[in-house]
């Protein structure tokens, strides 16, 4: 049973996805049932798994791939964090996507790939070694491509092309890195505190180069500075995809990979002894600031959010790179926190686009009165991003700051300050326009939903995720909060 559970978790989205592919467009009910059923089953299975791990069970599934190399799925603490995030957000996003794509064509294809995307994400999370990680990582690249190109316009095609150029190039680097690592170490299994420190010192140059390759490979998806170009362009995708891409699947897979490499492949201590973490921290810091600065000038709402993602995701890398337990907690917990907040923001952006035809910030004047719930959720998300307590973003930032100080890297504080200021500078004007400016006489493209501000399937998800992002911050100290999981994960890595 313990070997089957991870597989079942994967199957709970894979199988519905494959069936959905076969469905005809008009089988809406069946599709919805499959989607929601899969999502709920996955959530339940993940719940069982979390409970089991809490009770001290281990879940592991192995499949031989090559002599000496197997595909491995295992549910360790870090994996569970990401799995829980993915499966919760999948359920929410599915509801949203059903509402969002109500009348649009090619829904079967969309939801099919959507499920594949989630499967790959969960696979990434549950991977027990680098090669499995690589497998799902590439699968993720491929399964998101049709989602980006979904609108089938020339712009979409180009954006998807850009996405592929970046991610596949990253994947290639990753592959080289992984193979090379395998030739040196002979194993690829994730191990707390890494499996490389026993290697002879003569390999240290090679290990440094491999680190660069791996980080570059993951950095593409995590949109670290010179590799972020695909992300804003990928905004042509439908809103649920942007939400999923930016909050859960793609960028997080990259960031998660960085955490895995630093923690479970190299080990923080060993990576630090090779002087690899400082450059990573600087790069992440640069990304944080750069992304925020670029976000300032985007009038397109989704693009602004995209640049904001560029900035925010690097918090995770930053936390990981600061070689200290507290900062690691901050980085890891931001994996969840940023996910919740950013998905909220994208849902809201989608609602605005779908209900009122608003795509630009300059069209958002007074929208708070027309769509109060949406904008309330947006406000929570935005404040969270700025790092205002008690929202999720604050907790991450707090741990990052404390961790940086603890590790003797005070400069990080100023990066956080700069980022917070810039975040405020690009989010607050939106909030101001939405709540305090007089509404426009008519919206670009309004659809009426009767007494509701918009369809309930569009409204429920952002409100839910906004509340979640409030709750994880407000109740950060309770037993099952992401923060406590992150503390537990970091303790595995750092406790003697």
């Amino acid at each position, binding site marked *: 049973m313990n070997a089957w559970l991870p597989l079942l978790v994967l199957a709970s989205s894979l199988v519905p996805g494959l069936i959905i592919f076969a469905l005809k467009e008009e089988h809406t009910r069946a599709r919805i049932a499959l989607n929601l059923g899969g999502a709920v089953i996955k959530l339940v299975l993940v719940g069982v798994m979390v409970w089991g791990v809490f009770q001290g069970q281990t879940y592991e599934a192995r499949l031989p791939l090559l002599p000496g190399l197997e595909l491995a799925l295992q549910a360790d603490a870090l994996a569970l964090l990401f799995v829980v995030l993915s499966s919760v957000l999948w359920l929410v996003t599915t509801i949203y996507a059903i509402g969002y794509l109500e009348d649009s064509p090619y829904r079967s294809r969309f939801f099919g790939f959507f499920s594949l995307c989630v499967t790959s994400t969960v696979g990434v999370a549950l991977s027990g070694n680098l090669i499995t990680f690589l497998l799902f990582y590439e699968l993720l690249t491929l399964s998101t491509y049709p989602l980006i190109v979904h609108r089938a316009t020339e712009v979409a095609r180009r954006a*998807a092309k850009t996405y592929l150029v970046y991610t*596949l190039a990253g994947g290639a680097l990753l*592959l*080289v890195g992984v*193979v090379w690592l395998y030739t040196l170490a002979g194993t690829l299994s994730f191990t707390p505190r890494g499996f490389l420190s026993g290697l002879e010192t003569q390999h240290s140059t090679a290990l440094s180069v491999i680190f660069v390759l791996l980080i570059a490979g993951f950095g593409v998806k995590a949109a670290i500075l010179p590799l972020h170009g695909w992300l804003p362009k990928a905004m042509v995708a439908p809103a649920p995809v942007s939400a999923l891409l930016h909050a859960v699947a793609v960028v997080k897979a990259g960031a998660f990979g960085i955490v895995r490499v630093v923690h479970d492949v190299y080990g923080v201590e060993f990576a630090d002894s090779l002087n690899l973490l400082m450059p990573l921290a600087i790069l992440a810091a640069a990304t944080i600031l750069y992304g925020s600065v670029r976000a300032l000038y985007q009038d397109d709402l989704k693009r602004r959010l995209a640049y904001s993602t560029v900035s925010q995701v690097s918090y995770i890398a930053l936390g990981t790179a600061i070689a200290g337990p507290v900062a690691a907690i901050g980085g890891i917990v931001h994996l969840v926190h940023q996910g919740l907040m950013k998905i909220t923001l994208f849902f809201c952006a989608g609602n605005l686009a779908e209900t009122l035809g608003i795509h630009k910030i300059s069209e958002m004047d007074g929208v708070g009165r027309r769509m109060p719930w949406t904008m309330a959720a947006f406000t929570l998300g935005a404040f969270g991003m700025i790092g205002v307590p008690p929202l999720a973003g604050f907790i991450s930032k707090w741990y990052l700051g404390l961790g940086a100080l603890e590790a003797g890297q005070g400069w990080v504080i100023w990066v956080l300050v700069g980022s917070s200021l810039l975040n405020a500078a690009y989010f607050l004007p939106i909030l101001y326009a939405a709540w305090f400016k007089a509404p426009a006489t008519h919206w670009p493209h309004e659809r009426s939903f009767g007494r509701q501000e918009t369809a309930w399937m569009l409204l429920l998800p952002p409100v839910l995720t906004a509340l979640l992002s409030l709750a994880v911050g407000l109740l950060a100290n309770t037993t099952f909060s992401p923060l406590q999981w992150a503390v537990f994960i970091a303790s595995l890595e750092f406790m003697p």
Partner: protein
Amino acid sequence: MIEASGTPLPWIVWVILLPLIGAMLCFLWPRQGKTLGLLTALATLLAVIALYFQLLDGGVIRYAVGGWGAPLGIALYADGLSMLMLLMSALVGVGVSLYALGYFKHSPDNPAGFWPLWLLMWTGLNGLFVAGDIFNLYVTLELLGLSAVALVALAASRDALGGAMRYLFVSLLGSLCYLIGVALLYHAYGTVDIALLGTLVERNPATHVALGLMVVAMLLKSALFPLHFWLPPAHASAPAPVSALLSALVVKASFYLLLRLWFDVFSTVSMDLGMVLGVLGAAAIVWGSVLALRQTRLKLLVAYSTVAQLGYLFLPFALLSPLAWQGGVYFVLSHALAKAAMFMAAGNILAFGGHDRIADLDRVAQRLPITMTAFCLAGVSLMGLPPSGGFIAKWLLLDAALSHDQWGWAVMMMIGGLLAAAYVFKVVGFAFTQADAPHDAQPVSPFMEWSALALAVCAILLGLNAHYPLELLAIGGPVTFVSPSP
């Protein structure tokens, strides 16, 4: 053929005999070509599977047909490598046969010629894979080449006939070179048995001349850069099932032959020259990929992709490690399945829209989803992304390259993979969008769609459990898989 004396014929003979008989029958009763052809394909598949189990049980199989050994008789020999090739041919063969059922229903190409020629070609292929002496190899090679040329000519278009003509010349030229090599070897060592030759061959000019002639002949037939010029026109202009067969199997046959020669015959002299093949292979990867990227027509793109992918097969010659060999052979398998699927998908698209101009593909992804899925899955394998046979192959090759710090090869492979992604997704991207000039859709037979998908899925599945093929490959240790003797 030779009568069995008392005992029933072993499977190793049946795998050659069955397609031959089928070819004759199809030739005699062209009306029943489809039924007969399909039955033969299935029977051959079964025979191959039976042979597979025999091999698993008893290890390497040697058989002298009719009790006559080499040189005058026909010595048959099957080990893991042969078996893999046979299985690959059978799998692709059945797939293509199913595909052909649908294809020739609507195609203007001559269906009557297809079945006998294709089964004849299969005979040649299987014969080549189990041939135990170099002269029989020549015969099967010629059988293969001539039937392949005839198959290309089935399309009867101007391009196809030109391509076939060129292909024929190349094929004959190669065969003649090979034959001179056979003559030299026989003169020098007095035998054509591969195993015997392997023990006898020594460094002398005759050996070297024979090596040069035979190897280059095989390079010519395997279309290694810069001798690939004949491949794109022939493969691109042939009917879709034929293109699939040519790209998937025929070029692999000459590669297989090269492998046999290189390791089993010339192993004492050949190792130092591997670098040349490796460099040409790397050049082929880049050249073929770049040209594929530049193509505006789908089938030409796929054909150039074959040129590029064949380059990978030659990297192990330079990498010289068992791992690399496993990778190379794995590449043969995965490319065969993937490329067959891709050509079949391209054929579907061509049949569907009446053209294969990439930029004018009109929402094919939406309207031919199964075909497009097949194309993409095959593409995944070509790009070497996990999970696919191509990935395993690339992994093994990379492992081999990196564990000996041979950087250049790793870089070439990565570039090749990226370029492959570029040309595959060039097609996929346009398949999603609407073309400026929307075209009518012709119906595409489900046989065509599903057989393409089935092969593509096989290419993917090949990446999920690489144990079995690699274990099979180890049976008989066909290629010595050793580092070069100093």
